[in-house]
């Protein structure tokens, strides 16, 4: 009888697995026409709806412009988002619009044929920053609505207190010198955020992109190439800053899980290279009365011989699910979000839209709490935004290796040259 029960359980388990694996919806008709008045409930996958105000802003504006449409967000925990969406798409889920949190996942879904082709919509647009990242052999399966890029945030109060001029167009060497100078001057002048704390000239966050992605963007190097000599000058500078005490050291920052936000808003760092998403965070914190830091933005520091402003960033996009229940309505939403109207909706809350025009920049800098100086405006329009990490099937594996060796370099446990050689070795041997 024992055997029978085991067999029974095995059969039940097998059935459950089959049922779980095989649910799949039918293919949606791509040429379905859109009736502008028929009531539609559009489902959109999002992460952390509560903490990501851009979604609410977009949905409200779209619903206001399209009274027949009701948007139903499918809220997913931010950390689980890629896994959950992968599972949903593989299971044939019929959520209409899928938000592409990063380009790496996008490439995977597009290659798997899980997203509808929106190349025709892409052709109609122009000035969409970050659109190139979604080019899959000439076809587009998503349209970016938001494009973040890195700028240099600075704390005006600290600059004033030590009598330094606000940064405008720094080279990396000037940036490093400035950071060291401010640290010394602040200590000498007794400028401290609080008793017993230090004001650092800058804060370089612990992410590997702080060093590696900017090196990739500003040199000929490629983070997937397996040859990492081009990281060397950028690492030398980062280590120098750390040794000089001009930034909080990597070991402390990583083991204490220091938040860059706290470092900047409490005046512990005079400068902070960071993504433009931090603007929305600062505006929100100011509006809520959590901080009164007087800040401005400048372009990222550049290489010595650079004649244009190059930084890096990553776009966020909407895609139409191939199994979408309302694919025509979904296409309309995706196109709208990338249009001027969509851009205006998210600009209103300080999020940087993909669509770039003078009108948008104008609206952006008219926001309450935004710095109004010319440098900040210039910083907002970099000449070139490189993709933070190139997209390929090997990306996530390379990312892991680069991250591990980044820790080894920044904690000072492996000499730079050795770590770069190991990095190259590991990428060439382990990835594939």
């Amino acid at each position, binding site marked *: *009888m024992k055997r*029978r*029960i085991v067999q029974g*359980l*095995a059969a039940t*388990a097998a059935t*459950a697995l089959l049922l779980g694996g095989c649910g799949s919806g039918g293919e949606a008709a791509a040429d379905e026409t859109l009736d502008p008045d028929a009531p539609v409930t559009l489902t959109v996958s999002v992460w952390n709806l509560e903490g990501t105000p851009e979604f609410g802003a977009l949905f409200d504006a779209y619903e206001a412009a399209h009274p027949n449409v009701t948007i139903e967000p499918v809220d997913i925990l931010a950390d689980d988002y890629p*896994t959950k969406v*992968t599972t949903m798409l*593989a299971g044939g889920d019929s959520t209409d619009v899928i938000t592409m949190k990063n380009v790496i996942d996008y490439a995977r879904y597009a290659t798997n044929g899980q997203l509808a082709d929106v190349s025709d919509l892409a052709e109609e647009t122009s000035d969409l920053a970050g659109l190139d990242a979604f080019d899959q052999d000439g076809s587009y399966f998503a349209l970016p609505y938001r494009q973040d890029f890195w700028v240099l945030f600075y704390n005006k109060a600290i600059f004033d207190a030590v009598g330094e001029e606000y940064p405008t167009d720094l080279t990396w060497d000037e940036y490093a010198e400035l950071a060291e100078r401010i640290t010394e001057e602040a200590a000498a002048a007794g400028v401290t955020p609080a008793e017993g704390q230090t004001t650092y000239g800058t804060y370089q966050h612990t992410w590997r992109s702080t060093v590696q992605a900017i090196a990739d963007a500003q040199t000929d190097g490629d983070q997937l190439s397996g040859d990492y000599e081009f990281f060397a000058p950028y690492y030398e500078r980062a280590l120098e800053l750390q040794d000089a005490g001009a930034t909080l*050291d*990597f*070991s*402390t920052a*990583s*083991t*204490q*899980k220091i938040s860059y936000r706290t470092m900047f808003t409490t005046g512990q760092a005079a400068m902070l290279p960071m993504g433009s998403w931090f603007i929305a965070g600062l505006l929100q914190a100011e509006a809520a009365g959590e901080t009164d830091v007087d800040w401005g933005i400048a372009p990222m520091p550049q290489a010595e011989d650079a004649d244009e402003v190059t930084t890096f960033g990553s776009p966020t996009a909407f895609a139409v699910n191939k199994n979408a229940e309302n694919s025509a309505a979904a296409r309309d939403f995706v196109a709208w979000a990338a249009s001027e109207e969509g851009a205006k909706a998210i600009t209103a809350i300080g999020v940087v839209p993909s669509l770039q025009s003078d009108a948008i920049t104008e609206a952006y800098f008219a926001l309450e709490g935004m710095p109004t100086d010319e440098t900040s405006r210039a910083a907002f329009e970099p000449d070139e935004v490189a993709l933070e990490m190139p997209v390929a099937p090997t990306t*996530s*594996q390379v990312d*892991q290796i680069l991250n*591990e*060796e980044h*820790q*080894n370099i920044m*904690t000072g*446990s*492996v000499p730079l040259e050795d770590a770069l050689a190991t990095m190259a070795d*590991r990428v060439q*041997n*382990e990835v594939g």
Partner: protein
Amino acid sequence: MASTTLDRPAAAPRRGGPAGRRPAYVNRRQVRRNTLLGWSFILPNFVGFALLTLVPVIATFGIAFTRWNAYAAPEFTGLDNLTRLVGDENFRVALVNTLYYTVGHVPLTMAASLGLALALNRKIRGLAFFRTAAFFPYITSIVAVAVVWNMLYNPSQGPINQLLTTFGVSDPPGWTSDPTWAMPAVILTGVWKDMGYYMILFLAGLQTIPPELYEAAKTDGANALQRFRHVTVPCLRPTTFFVLIMLTIGSFKVFDLIVVMTNGGPGRSTLVLSQLIYREGIVNGRFGYSSAVALALFLLVLVITLLQYARNQRLET
């Protein structure tokens, strides 16, 4: 099962034993009821165990020989995953780190928990308080433990290094931010967290030792150390064996502590096998290779546990 008993009445008496002894009385309904009752008691647990543990464990043995991303049909690849395992630098690093953790964690935890148990196995004031205090780390959330210990380990401002500096250590270790010291730091935290639980087991073991043995030893002139070596240690052997097995298995599959404290870093200095399994399977979607690593870990634990059993058997005879 009901039908088995009814259809084959001849089977029932045979259950009594090989000699064909008939049980004193056979009330089939009674037997059936008892069996059903027994099954019903373990059923809720067994269903959960079977669906969530047994089936996946057995499946692992099959998946380890395939290439599978959890969505497409698995593709049989023979021994590919295992050959890859042999040449995989990440696997080698994780294996060495796992052994390092085990070799450090098992004896230290045993010594600490036995020490605590001996200290708290006497009538002292506030006994309940001290026992509770020692047990507390075990029931504390691992995330809280990791955050607090990371603060203590802070290389520049942490209390541990400040204490070391005042005692004249000029270059105190970097703990979790230094690849050489990260593993010892994690081991120490692990010992601190686990010792309370094993202390309870040792305490229970100590209570079973008859006081007469100690009295007799005393009468024979044995000092405290001799009484410990020749009375306590042998009498505790069943407990020690159990603790050893549980600790070893627990150390080999350490995961949460590492993930929240160092996440395998700096570099790969604290990357352990279970973390590699998670990374390969859940993060990279290579369930075939991930299962192969899991299989290797399973075999490793199995062999070591069997060796420990064999040793215990030898000591018993």
